[in-house]
């Protein structure tokens, strides 16, 4: 393959990142800036960050689980349940720890089911999703309630002249970078996802996979806190889209669903691309239903371009 071909069509072996998503993202940006006057306005850029921040949070967690050959379908229901807990009539220092504790327990249940009882990740997280969604609808049957003003301020204000959604995004990225690319745990994630032999080299497979699921749920809870601050109330269905969206974003970013190959920057590009497409279609007044169709079509295309060894799940 020619040099140009290598750059454009071959994925980096560890990161799996193609140049194509990056190019598509840049083209989207340029196209939208040209097509709509509002695109580069300060308000729209801020909206873009506010839309992307929760997706980035959920996707980082999703990527950590996918790296160890897993999948977490319960993230969306954790987001919903978190907004439900935060909208309860209680002070912040009770609701926020309660929400994080809930997320840790959900992650622990996922992890224990997958590692101890060898339940397939999809089945395990699907059933836990049902339980968590049920709990979310129990805590808050329909959208409503009020979230403490501290959380609203944490999301909508400014700090040192920087808007809060931007700060959330940066903190999420730094945190994700530390975990995935700058820690022993991150290296172990790649090793476990890469092959069957990780255990032979003294890597505690079970413990690390368990930690991956707990982290994924906690990231989802953080996204829930952000969203609760944005809408200033609780909503049992606000998280529904995040399971599919986060998988789409992670897959777009070159992370292989078979595990062991992926990167944080790839996931960020995937999130950015997905948010750009959604934002652009909103600006161009595309129907919400067509947006769903487009999202599904992108997911199909990306997945069809990721051939694997095994057939099936």
């Amino acid at each position, binding site marked *: 393959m020619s040099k140009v071909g290598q750059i454009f069509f071959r994925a980096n072996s560890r990161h799996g990142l193609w140049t194509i998503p990056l190019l598509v993202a840049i083209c989207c940006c340029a196209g939208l800036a040209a097509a709509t006057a509002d695109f580069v306005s300060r308000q729209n850029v801020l909206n873009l960050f506010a839309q992307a921040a929760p997706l980035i949070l959920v996707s980082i967690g999703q990527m950590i689980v996918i790296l160890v050959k897993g999948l977490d379908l319960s993230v969306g229901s954790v987001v919903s349940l978190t907004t439900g807990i935060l909208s309860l009539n209680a002070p912040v220092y009770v609701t926020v720890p309660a929400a994080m504790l809930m997320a840790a327990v959900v992650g622990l249940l996922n992890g224990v089911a997958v590692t101890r009882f060898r339940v397939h990740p999809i089945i395990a997280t699907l059933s836990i999703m049902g339980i968590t*969604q*049920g709990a979310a609808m129990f805590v808050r049957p329909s959208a409503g309630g009020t979230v403490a003003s501290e959380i609203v301020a944490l999301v909508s204000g400014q700090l040192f002249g920087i808007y809060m959604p931007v700060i959330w995004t940066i903190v999420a990225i730094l945190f994700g970078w530390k975990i995935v690319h700058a820690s022993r745990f991150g290296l172990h994630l790649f090793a476990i996802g890469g092959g069957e032999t990780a255990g032979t080299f003294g890597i505690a497979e079970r413990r690390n996979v368990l930690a991956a699921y707990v982290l994924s749920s906690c990231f989802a809870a953080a996204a829930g806190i952000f969203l609760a601050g944005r809408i200033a109330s609780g909503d049992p269905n606000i998280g529904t889209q995040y399971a599919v969206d986060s998988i789409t974003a992670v897959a777009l970013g070159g992370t292989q669903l078979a595990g062991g190959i992926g990167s944080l920057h790839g996931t960020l590009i995937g999130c950015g691309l997905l948010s750009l497409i959604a934002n652009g279609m909103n600006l161009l007044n595309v129907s919400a239903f*067509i947006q769903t*169709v487009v999202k599904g079509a992108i*997911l199909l295309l990306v997945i069809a371009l990721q051939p694997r*060894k095994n057939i099936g799940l």
Partner: protein
Amino acid sequence: MTSRSSLFRAALRIPPSCIVFVVLLVTLWVLRPNMMNPAILGTFARQVVPLGIVVLGQLLVISSRSIDLSAGGIILLVNYLISSGLLYSWPLLPIVLLCLGVGLAVGLVNGLLVGKRRASAVIVTLAINIVLIGLVEYLANGKPPGDVPAEFHALYNLRFWTIPAPVMFWIALAGIMSAFLGVSVFGRFVWSIGSNPTSAHFSGVPVERTVVIAHVISGLMSAVAALVQTSSIAVGSVRFGPELVMNSIAATILGGVVFGRPAEVWGPFVGVLCFALLFVVMTTMGVQEPGKLIVQGLIILLAAIFYGLRSKSN
């Protein structure tokens, strides 16, 4: 000791659905003895016929180590086709054939992407599902669609010796599927892929083709389920909960078919009946929607853990 452990193993071999079914039946008998007559139980069974037919496809797909999450989208699309009035002047048979064709086509797309492109089945069928749902909602444009032709409803309400026609149809379909899996070469292929895909491949089993065919059958079954579902509600609807897909997976696992287990029809069949009883028991006990979700999730998890333990002891 040996006799006890072999007894334990024999107990493990019974699908959990049978145990759950007996427990639920006894619960209902204690709570509402007057419900224990064939006419009422037949009506309960009739409500889960669409689920039961989806499960017939799902068990094939799950047994060949894949999964089909697109049933909801197919049901929505078929329901829209029938109730939107687009085909109002058409006679019954072409409508039915068109709907079955839709199911076949979606199943084929799923199958080709999963089998030939080797894409992840969860993602493919999930994506197809959201594409179909988005499409139908866009076409329907938020309006509830019109009426379903009267023939459908008449057929649905038919009863033979107090047994509702849809239930008879379901039992017949399950019988055909069971015989097909037992007799045909395709059934053996599914069985061997379920046991071990690698050794199946090296034994000359066409793994790709079998997975594609399993997905096509699953799509077809979803379309058949959609026809039954549509005739049951008599008017069009744009809302079908995703719970149908989740329940179909739950019933399949409850029936003892998990990834890499040989396909078996009657275990999941009883699993679907469990759901019929479960809805009734929970409704009589006043459990609301959140409680139902939690119970369903718990059932899937426990059944899967049960099988995880069993595969570990083997």
